[in-house]
């Protein structure tokens, strides 16, 4: 059976997103992670409301954990959505 194997996909560009490397909270010590400041947390959630992983956000482990905790707290008190699928109005 002439089952041609698809040629291996040409190497995808290594970096799809160009995001700044390094933890922004380590770089700027004045930045505070607070679950009430939703505007700062928006950067770390996707359009669907998911938390952006560390490999993309570039946060260090400590700060990613703090961000995650803050987002979850904000979700609990309806400041951030759990998902974008339940829009109302």
């Amino acid at each position, binding site marked *: 059976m002439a089952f041609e194997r698809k040629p291996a996909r040409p190497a995808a560009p290594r970096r799809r997103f160009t995001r700044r490397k390094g933890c922004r909270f380590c770089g700027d010590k*004045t930045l505070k992670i607070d*679950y*009430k400041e939703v505007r700062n947390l928006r950067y770390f959630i996707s359009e669907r409301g998911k938390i952006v992983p560390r490999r993309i956000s570039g946060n260090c482990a400590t700060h990613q954990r703090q961000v995650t905790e803050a987002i979850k*707290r904000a*979700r*609990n*008190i*309806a*400041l*951030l*959505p*759990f998902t974008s699928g*339940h829009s*109302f*109005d």
Partner: protein
Amino acid sequence: MRTYETIFIVHPDVVGDQYAATVDKFKGILTEQGSEILKVDEWGTRKLAYQVKKQGRGTYVLVAYQAGPEVVAEFERRMRIDESIIKFQTIYLEKGLEVAPAPAASEAVAEEGAEAEESTEETE
């Protein structure tokens, strides 16, 4: 004594005197149990990220206070009973309440405030 921070969302239909009475009532619940209120911040009515008790809006109130754990339990019990409170969340502030610099200050002043804040933290 521990420092706690409670956010509660008041039903959007509770307005005016009724709303003021509700906030006062819950402040009273805290003080009558011997806790010290550090901060009360009324954010006003804002849109919720998702519906809570079929409401799309809610009036946020933030209260920071010093109290023991049993006060929090009683406070939350009373909030569950009151139907004008649609949601609440209590957070334990390990570092205590951080004094935020004046909101309507220019950037330079805000930076100074942040520095001052840091130094006070160190001295504590």
